[in-house]
């Protein structure tokens, strides 16, 4: 789950600060677009599509070569815009009544509203031969069954990321935030983003992570207010460096981000608690307003090529829903970052993060205010 436009093996908090500061001003990262014109004349082997394609994605979320190699292959001139959050890109699309981009990267829970608004184009499978590379499970995700309007780019889950050398026993339950063992008191962080803030409570209570039942949300809010007393704080961006420095011993973390901690300290491990968790997906959606849908389909096809999927996984250390790509991954990498090896079947057992609209959203934001203000 991508939140800010940065990631990487950032241990020092100050480095994180530099990057945070930079993410405001970093315009399009369309490296390589300058050589697109000459490569078109150079001729390409398969398709010759041409035209322009405007993509919006989180910063540093694509391998460097992904765009240039696509431009070379198809003669399409790609412009990459950067958004920092889902809400950011949704706002931009809304401001232009559904236009302005040909293809956007959004998290799964935002696909449904894009479809409802009539902004998402239907995916034409006949134009994406590489769709067959997707795991069968990747078309069974609740937010868009059958991938009719979106194609998954990366996926993963949320769990507990902890220092084995600083806990007495392996944590197994989300309850750890509410009733921590003595050694973890004040040494834990939880995610502060709305949708993940209440997740431990909801999961610990056996409720849906997409619940909009006022009573359940209220209970979850009280649970989280109580859990807050045991926390070091809420943290969405530097929790893994807090583990590395030893400030925190256990954090609620997205699997891929836990890997950034593991990269620094071999004592860090990731576990999905027994109550289960969420399955999040970042997807590619073609907008209905696109004038170059053929190029957008070709781009998705390009991303789904095994070697490109592999490059994505290696860069961001998230799982990709691309079977041959995952099979091509170096075994050592999976050994170093075991959560890369979580099987699709296990991911599918988790509950997909779905859109909660309208009144539900207000219910959640009141609950968040109650937790943070309490």
């Amino acid at each position, binding site marked *: 789950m991508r939140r800010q436009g940065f990631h990487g093996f950032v241990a020092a*908090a*100050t480095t*994180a*600060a*530099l990057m*945070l*500061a930079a993410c405001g001003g970093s315009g399009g990262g369309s490296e390589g677009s300058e050589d697109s014109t000459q490569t078109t004349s150079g001729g390409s082997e398969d398709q010759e599509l041409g035209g322009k394609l405007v993509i919006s994605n989180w910063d540093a979320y694509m391998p460097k070569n992904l765009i240039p190699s696509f431009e070379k292959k198809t003669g399409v001139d790609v412009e990459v815009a950067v958004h920092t*959050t889902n*809400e*950011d890109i*949704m*706002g931009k*699309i*809304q*401001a232009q009544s559904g236009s302005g981009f040909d293809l956007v990267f959004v998290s799964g829970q935002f696909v449904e*509203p894009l479809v409802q*608004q009539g902004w998402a184009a239907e995916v034409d499978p006949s134009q994406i031969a590489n769709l067959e590379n997707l795991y069968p499970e990747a078309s069974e995700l609740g937010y868009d069954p059958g991938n009719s309007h979106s194609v998954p780019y990366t996926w993963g889950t949320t769990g507990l990321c902890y220092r084995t050398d600083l806990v007495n026993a392996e944590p197994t339950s989300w309850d750890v935030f509410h009733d921590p063992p003595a050694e973890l008191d004040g040494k834990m*962080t939880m995610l*502060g*983003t*709305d949708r993940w803030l209440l997740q431990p409570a909801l999961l610990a209570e056996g409720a849906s992570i997409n619940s909009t039942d006022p009573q359940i949300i209220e209970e979850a809010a009280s649970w989280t207010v109580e859990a*807050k007393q045991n*926390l*070091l*704080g*809420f*943290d969405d961006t530097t929790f893994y460096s807090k583990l590395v*420095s*030893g*400030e925190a011993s256990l954090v609620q973390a997205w699997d891929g981000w836990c890997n950034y901690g593991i990269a620094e300290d071999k004592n860090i491990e990731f576990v999905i608690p027994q109550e289960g968790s969420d399955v999040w997906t970042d997807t590619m959606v073609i907008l209905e307003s696109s004038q170059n849908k053929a190029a957008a389909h070709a781009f998705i096809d390009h991303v789904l090529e095994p070697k490109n999927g592999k490059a994505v996984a290696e860069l961001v250390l998230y799982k990709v829903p691309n079977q041959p790509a995952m099979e091509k991954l170096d075994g050592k990498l999976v050994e170093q970052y075991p959560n890369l090896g979580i099987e699709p079947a296990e991911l599918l057992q988790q509950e997909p993060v779905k859109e909660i*609209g*309208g009144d539900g*959203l*207000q219910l*959640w*934001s*009141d609950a*968040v*205010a*109650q937790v*943070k*203000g309490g």
Partner: protein
Amino acid sequence: MSSFKRFIPRAVLVGPGMGYWIVFFLAPIGLLLAYSFLERGPFGGVIAEFTWGNYPRLFDPLYLKVLLTSVRIALVATSIALLLGYPAAYFIANASKRWRVPLLFLVILPFWTSFLIRTYAWMVLLSPVGLINKALIGIGLIDDPLPLLYNELAIVIGLVYAYIPLMILPLFASLERLGGELREASADLFASPFESFRTITLPLTLPGIVAGCIFVFVPSLGNFIIPDLLGGGRKVMIGNLIQQQFLQARDWPFGAVLAIAVVVLMLLLLGVQAQVLRREQATES
């Protein structure tokens, strides 16, 4: 001379600044005000349907509590900034001319780097495994790290640090204008230094004090980075709520209501400031 002839140079001089102010200051506030009376759009933004309904939420105890917490934290930060800033401004104002400029330069020096980076630097200093705790443990003063980070103390430290230059500068201005003559005169008349300070310096620098306090209080109230990073997100201030409404809850109208609440609070404060200045002028004349 016709009034038109006088109008042109005035328009040329004042016009650009006025224009800038209207476009970039008044217009956004007008927009916020308009948003606060509209229905929210499904993904942020607004739908053009009038409603009063966003305002009652402001008086929900949930949000009132956050507003009060914010005011309290901002007040504490302002008071500390005043207590630390006044002697500093006094010292600079009374330093020799040669030193004044370098000293003022030091005061504004932090503004040269990104606010965010300076805030992260405080995390490095205050963290349980940070420099301060390591040093204190190293020299054997304490055994366990002090809880300096992720609490209200850290927020106050961050706010005082961030905004103390805005306290020192107006104080310096009013202290420098005051000069030393009145103090000397009162000393000649056998007033003790404390008496001189209480009856002369303090009242005459009151406008500077009020200005400095407002300059510190207002941005402290609206800050959301410091509570998030140094407070560890455990305490929210009104700025965080506004940010959350716009960026996560996709409820721009309610975010606008909260922002308007802050603007109203600021206007009240400026009213107080105007009152103080008027009284000051009345006593002078």
